[in-house]
């Protein structure tokens, strides 16, 4: 049931997109045979090839770099830094929506940004912002950096979780005893065992980086933009003539993501083969450790940039005047914060309501799913894992607009409900991923004891299972809420622009003329999920303040 409900909208959306790309455009007379017209109009768009090249370049570069950096950093800090501490210090970056981080990075890196201000004019001689493409550069370096600030913490977290399941200490000691450097032991012995455990998250990162829209709108190249951004623009264009290239581009985006993922899986084998050959040679020499240190330093820089970006948002949000090259605002003001009606009130309310609604629905569905698996004694099928992950593996532009067309045909207009439903497609997978391990790890003897004491299934559920799982439930809820707040394209497409949220407003304003207002929206956007995380951390402590084992320590 659940699986069907999940699969259907995706397939319908994809089908509508592919159909339209083949010439069956919605709202037009149907051609008798498939037409190449949409594809031709796509190829004729100025800058089309460059857009595809930028998509491939930024997507691959950011994924490979994120993986290398996260893996190296793990090698450096593993068992030197408590996992829990690492997890918590990464929380602001993990919680912050992509668009908020992107806006913050622009505030940091742009020619008028914070870093240029700190160095000007004493070191640079710049009285005015220099005419340099430091963000929205044609090569997409700023976009790659932006993706790294988000993906490196994510991969660090999943890697640390994977390493916790492996006998890393023993492996490392054996390798060191055989004379390998820490770096080589790490790369040759530990990572090959950890990688299969994080393959799916890595594929998420790859698919996401290839098709990201909100971050690319703020940091990515503009003339032309990446393919996903160009497709979004065509879908948004007032002239319906752009629907042809938009649908063809969406189909192409899907093909690109699938092809690159296939290539990635082949690449894994090639790397594995080369790695085996390298290991078989058994060479102990070579200085791996400095490389590890360099990668660790680069990771630190990326993480610091991300955190500073969030701080920069805070300064702009409260600034009144901040002329270049002043390092700090010359005047502060609360004027925009107090203007609720003409400003952020509606967007804040929508973000909150959507987050609450989708999180509650997703938690409920996730619990039903897990409970169903458990009562039916069913192991999680591989297809189910992939199915749940599907919305995270497919590019959003490839099915969301098509989905909207299908919904309209079914008589469901754009609005709050459509947005909430589309968001749930992305929130549910995350809640399920977070909730599954603790659910399965629950000691069945506790329930058996309750049953032997005469508690029926419902009572067992309410008085034993729910309290025991309160902390993971809240954590899954916080993750789901953070995902909902951050979603850009589902909100934009399914709401037809009439359900403004902090995220859609922040991205729209980011290209405009008032950084103070952009800062306010982006800061609120970054704070909302963080508050949810904090609640998930603190609520169990307060509720179970007399039950230390339940209050739990680890985040």
């Amino acid at each position: 049931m659940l699986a069907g409900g999940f699969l259907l909208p995706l397939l319908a959306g994809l089908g509508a997109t592919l159909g339209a790309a083949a010439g069956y455009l919605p709202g037009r007379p149907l051609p008798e045979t498939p037409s190449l017209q949409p594809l031709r109009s796509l190829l004729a768009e100025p800058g089309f090839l460059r857009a595809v090249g930028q998509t491939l370049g930024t997507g691959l570069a950011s994924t490979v770099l994120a993986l290398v950096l996260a893996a190296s950093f793990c090698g450096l800090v593993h068992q030197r830094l408590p996992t829990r501490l690492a997890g918590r210090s990464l929380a602001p970056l993990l919680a912050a929506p992509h668009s908020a981080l992107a806006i913050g990075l622009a505030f940091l890196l742009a020619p008028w940004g914070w870093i240029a201000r700190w160095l000007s004019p004493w070191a640079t001689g710049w009285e005015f912002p220099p005419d340099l493409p430091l963000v929205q550069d044609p090569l997409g370096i700023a976009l790659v950096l932006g993706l790294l600030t988000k993906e490196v913490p994510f991969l660090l977290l999943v890697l640390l979780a994977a390493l916790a399941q492996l006998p890393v200490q023993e492996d490392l000691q054996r390798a060191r005893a055989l004379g390998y450097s820490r770096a080589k032991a790490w790369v040759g012995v530990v990572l090959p065992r950890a990688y299969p455990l994080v393959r799916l998250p890595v594929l998420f990162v790859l698919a996401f980086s290839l098709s990201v829209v909100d971050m690319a709108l703020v940091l990515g190249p503009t003339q032309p933009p990446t393919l996903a951004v160009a497709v979004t623009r065509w879908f948004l264009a007032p002239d319906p003539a752009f629907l042809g290239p938009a649908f063809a581009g969406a189909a192409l985006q899907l093909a690109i993501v699938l092809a690159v993922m296939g290539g990635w899986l082949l690449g894994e084998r090639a790397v594995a083969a080369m790695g085996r050959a390298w290991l078989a040679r058994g060479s102990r020499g070579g200085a791996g450790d400095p490389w590890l240190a360099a990668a660790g330093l680069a990771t630190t820089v990326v993480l610091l940039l991300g955190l500073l970006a969030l701080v920069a948002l805070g300064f702009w949000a409260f600034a009144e005047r901040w002329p270049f090259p002043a390092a700090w605002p010359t005047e502060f003001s609360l004027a925009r914060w107090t203007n609720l009606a003409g400003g952020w009130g509606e967007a804040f309310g929508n973000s909150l309501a959507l987050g609450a609604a989708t999180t509650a629905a997703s938690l409920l569905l996730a619990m039903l799913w897990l409970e169903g698996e458990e009562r039916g004694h069913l192991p999680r099928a591989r297809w189910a894992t992939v199915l749940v992950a599907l919305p995270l593996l497919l590019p959003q532009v490839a099915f969301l607009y098509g989905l909207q067309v299908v919904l309209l045909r079914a008589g469901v207009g754009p609005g709050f409900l459509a947005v909430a439903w589309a968001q749930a497609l992305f929130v549910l997978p995350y809640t399920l991923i977070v909730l599954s391990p603790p659910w399965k790890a629950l000691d069945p003897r506790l329930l058996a004891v309750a049953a032997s004491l005469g508690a029926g299934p419902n009572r067992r559920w309410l008085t034993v299972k729910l309290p025991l799982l309160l902390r993971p439930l809240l954590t899954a809820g916080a993750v789901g809420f953070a995902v909902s707040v951050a979603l850009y394209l589902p909100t934009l497409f399914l709401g037809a622009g009439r359900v403004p949220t902090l995220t859609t407003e922040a991205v729209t304003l980011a290209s405009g003329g008032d950084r103070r207002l952009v800062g306010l929206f982006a800061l609120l956007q970054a704070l909302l999920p963080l508050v949810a995380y904090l609640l998930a951390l603190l609520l169990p402590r307060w509720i179970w303040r007399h039950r230390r084992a339940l209050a739990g320590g680890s985040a």
Partner: protein
Amino acid sequence: MRLLPTLLLLNALLLPPGTARAAGDTAAEPAPARPWEEVVAEARGQTVYWAAWAGDSRTNAFLRWVAGEVRERYGIRLEHWKLSDTGEAVARIAAEKAAGRDEDGSIDLLWVNGPNFLALKEADLLYGPFLGSLPHSRYLDRSPGSPAVTDFTVPTEGYESPWRLARLVLLYDRDRVPDPPANTDELLAWAREHPGRLTHPDPANFMGATFLKQALLEQVTDPAALAAPATPERFAEVTAPLWEWYDALRPHLWRQGRSFPADEFAQRQLLADGAVDFGLSFDPASAAAAVREGLLPESVRTLSFEGGMIGNFSFVAIPYNSGATAAARVVANFLLAPATQARAEDIRVLGSFSVLERDRLSAGERALFDALPSPPGLPTPEELGPVRPEPHPSWMTRLTRVWKERYTR
């Protein structure tokens, strides 16, 4: 906030026409035949959906004020339907017509001009003529060719009512540019001397397209050609001097002309940072307003070229399928009231110049305008100089497309 026009279009095509409001009021009636009091009486209780570009917070605030006033005075509920591009509304009305939704359409009043007006008028999608039925139209100069009844060279024939004056100005910081250029040739010379200090919004945005049109008007050898629709052959011939000028200018632009600010507001931010030395606006009061809001330094002034700058009237039109034409006309008439126009001209409110003829106002009405404050940065009408009429709408459409083909690799 962006709307999704094509989505809304699909919405109109795929959903049955709404029947929420009582249909069939005055749409077929010749407007001037009825006394105005009857129109006002009928308007009471109606809801007007005003589709209007929402990119400017001051304009949005002004629309909120208008909504409060017409509710109080006429019992009309006015809702601002926020657009990021007026083309969205045009697509929507066209889609409603295609879907046979000829009554009770979703838009009752539309802020429109130029190519969008022409598209609506040619497709017969407008209600009217109605301008003559508005009592306050007596304050307008309605002689043929007057800007109040001409939209981008197209006679409005009573299908549009003006409500604010838009004219292009450049913004510059007089501390950084003490001797600003007086025309586009001097602008080119200035850019050569100051590489990287000039830019313009992306021509996909109307402000970027307007910059190109201003240059076209100055560079073209035969300005009269621009009054007629652009054909492919005429276009290539007439615009040749423009592209020559632009090819010379582009390497000296900010980012070597490879990247452009998205709109006038993004460019204003660059001006505020000092990253570039010029901004653009359709609102002569925008510099003074932005200074007040802390968005620009106090040394920013407005600049008009010596031969005059492009100007046009902003209009409101009523879609043919509006279910609230009486209330829409009452709102249009309210916008033309001297007190409304004086409020719009107030720099603290909107700062857009009045569309009314001064000599048609009574002494008391003129006093409303004379009492308005005039802070530094606000140009006088003399400083603004003459208004250059817009070319025929087809030139703008083609300019934008050809620019993209020439300069996006």
